[in-house]
């Protein structure tokens, strides 16, 4: 060997070639960006004026100086597109850097840019902003590569508008589900039932995700307690809004009322699921839950209708400790793979799948996601 074989200051150097060719993967939590100026340009002029963009990436949502990120940047620093811009802003780059590299058959797009609307009071602004963003994700990402799958973002404030947006887009190719930034209307509230009914009509699962304004906006789920001092403390509690959502959906009877409804809790972790399920059953047995209206134990609804993602994958000192935890949540039917690409706390697909018990790998990589999203995945 002589001379410079290859000097690569660029992206992804050192990652191995696709290892997962034999295993095609459905990623249930992938984070793309769209150019917000383009979203805003598509909004009606009056609505446009009330949208404040704090950066290319985000509408004003969280107060920036709350629990500052210790190293300043929440994205993977090696996933910056060759042409520049933020990690996750260039579809062609993401195809090469992520889909092709790991054998991703479908990546469910969770638009973080939709979350800031929790703070917005003007419902028509929210509705036009989300509609423009939804269109742009279809045009810019799904059209670039059909493996990018669409979640319809709907208003957390206005269930009627949410229903209209679901009806407008449900039959578009590439749409696999919908997402609601968790806001002031509890997910177990009957106000949400018309949204769930529309989703059930079209067979669209609901995907929930930490909304980056959790514990920041008054109308968004807080961490338990109230205000975390540091980002580290905040980040360790990231799963709590998901725990709240799971509890509301089960204990309110919403899942009982909509038995075909599937809900994916993305990036909320999973090691709490079994233990919380036992607590729910205990509470139910003692007379709690939908004021006694739930005919069956909460664990049945949870196991049948809720799904949980792998990322952030637990790292116990003794890897065997995960086995009873996975058993307790019946992971063979409730756990789906997610990467969180291109966020800083991403999980690498082959590493996570290899850490799972061998009998779970195929289920987690693809099968359970296919059962959850159905034929819309096109797999």
């Amino acid at each position, binding site marked *: 060997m002589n001379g410079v074989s290859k000097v690569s200051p660029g992206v992804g150097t050192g990652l191995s070639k696709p290892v997962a060719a034999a295993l095609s993967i459905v990623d249930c939590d992938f984070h793309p960006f769209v150019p917000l100026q383009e979203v805003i340009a598509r909004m009606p002029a009056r609505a446009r004026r009330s949208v404040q963009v704090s950066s290319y990436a985000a509408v004003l949502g969280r107060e920036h100086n709350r629990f500052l990120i210790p190293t300043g940047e929440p994205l993977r620093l090696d996933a910056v597109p060759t042409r520049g811009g933020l990690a996750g802003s260039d579809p062609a780059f993401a195809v090469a850097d992520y889909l092709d590299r790991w054998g991703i058959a479908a990546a469910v797009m969770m638009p973080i840019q939709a979350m800031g609307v929790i703070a917005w009071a003007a419902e028509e602004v929210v509705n036009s902003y989300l509609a423009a963003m939804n269109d742009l994700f279809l045009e810019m990402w799904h059209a670039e590569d059909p493996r990018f799958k669409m979640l319809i973002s709907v208003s957390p404030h206005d269930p009627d508008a949410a229903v209209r947006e679901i009806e407008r887009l449900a039959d578009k190719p590439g749409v696999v589900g919908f997402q609601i930034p968790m806001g002031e209307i509890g997910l177990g509230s009957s106000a949400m039932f018309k949204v769930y009914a529309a989703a059930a009509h079209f067979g669209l699962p609901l995907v929930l995700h930490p909304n980056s304004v959790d514990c920041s906006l008054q109308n968004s789920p807080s961490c338990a307690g109230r205000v975390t001092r*540091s980002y580290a403390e905040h980040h360790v509690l990231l799963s709590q809004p998901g725990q709240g959502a799971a509890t509301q959906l089960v204990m309110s009877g919403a899942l009982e009322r909509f038995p075909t409804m599937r809900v994916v809790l993305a990036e909320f972790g999973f090691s709490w699921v079994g233990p919380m399920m036992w607590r729910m059953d205990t509470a139910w047995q003692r007379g709690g839950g939908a004021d006694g209206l739930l005919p069956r134990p909460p664990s049945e609804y949870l196991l049948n209708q809720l799904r949980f993602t792998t990322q952030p994958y*637990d790292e116990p000192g003794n890897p065997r400790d995960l086995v009873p935890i996975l058993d307790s949540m019946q992971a063979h039917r409730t756990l789906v793979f997610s990467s969180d690409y291109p966020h800083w706390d991403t999980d690498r697909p082959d590493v996570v799948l290899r850490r799972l018990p061998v009998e779970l790998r195929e289920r987690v990589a693809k099968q359970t996601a296919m059962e959850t999203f159905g034929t819309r995945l096109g797999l």
Partner: protein
Amino acid sequence: MSEALIDCEYHVAAPDLQLLLPYMEKSWAARFVRSRFSLPLGREHPGGGSLTEGSSLPDPATAGAALAAGTRAALLVPHQVMPVAGWTDTLLCSVYATALNRYVREHWIPADRRFRMAIAISPHEPELAADEIDRYGEDVSAAAIVMPLLATHLGQTHYRPIFKAAARHRLPVIVHPSGREGTIVGTPVLSGMGPRHAGEYHSLIWQAAVTNIASLVYDGVFIDLPDLRVVFAGFGFEWLPGVLWHLDMEWRSLRIDIPWVTDPPSVYVARHIRIVIDDLGLTPPEASRQIANMLAEGLLMWGSNSPFATNSAAEVLDAMPEKLRAKVAFGNAAETFGSRLLTEALA
């Protein structure tokens, strides 16, 4: 011969406000009466559940005889202090806690030599709480401190006078649900929950323990106060392994921001945090054993939760791995609460 037990959570209550009024200044007693202060019902467990119809609150004169066989010491938790978390007259809360303590000290402690009190404090006024702790600092009948949680996390400076006093006297601080979490402003929020279905509270109350464990460890409270122990009673324990994995994982990534945390967070938890198991619920015993096996051996302690007990000591211990049973029953509490708990010399 019964296994030796230390009961870390034996609830006691004053059945009537009249019993507390003698332990306040007259002007305060008059204010309690004039403003129609409503004494929290001793029959109701603040974390959920109440005494069944026909059963009565334990009486100091007969309670000792009714302790579980083998009990060598019982920590008396005056649970009527928990609702102060939801009250706004913070001075009244302190006066009330002081009266509860004097009631327990005079009515309960002399009744059985195995009784020890957990000093009830209101966390609203930390300096007054520290004074209350100091009042019992040399009293061997006091072996712990007990309080409910406020929305402010335990690592934040608000609580520091309480923790300093606790460490000064080597008195562990027990925190216990108040039943107000998730509903009353000023108490901890439970994520996602409003005043909705009863079962949501039980499903989510453990979150308050998680938040406060993270706050204590990441904000370095145990580095400033190496003698401090904080005990979580009434929050369960089965969620703990996953929480410890995440505490350690975030530390590996974000240590630069909390560089004073020089050991893995789970190590601080093993050293300084204790968990009282007082209710197994429907957690399968085999799962309990597996989960307990993942935890540090000194972490778990038994509490009867009497008179609201849902499990016998034998049931709880059976849900522990063999190697932990004696520690959960006795050893860990003896180590945590120290010599005051088992000394024969009572004032």
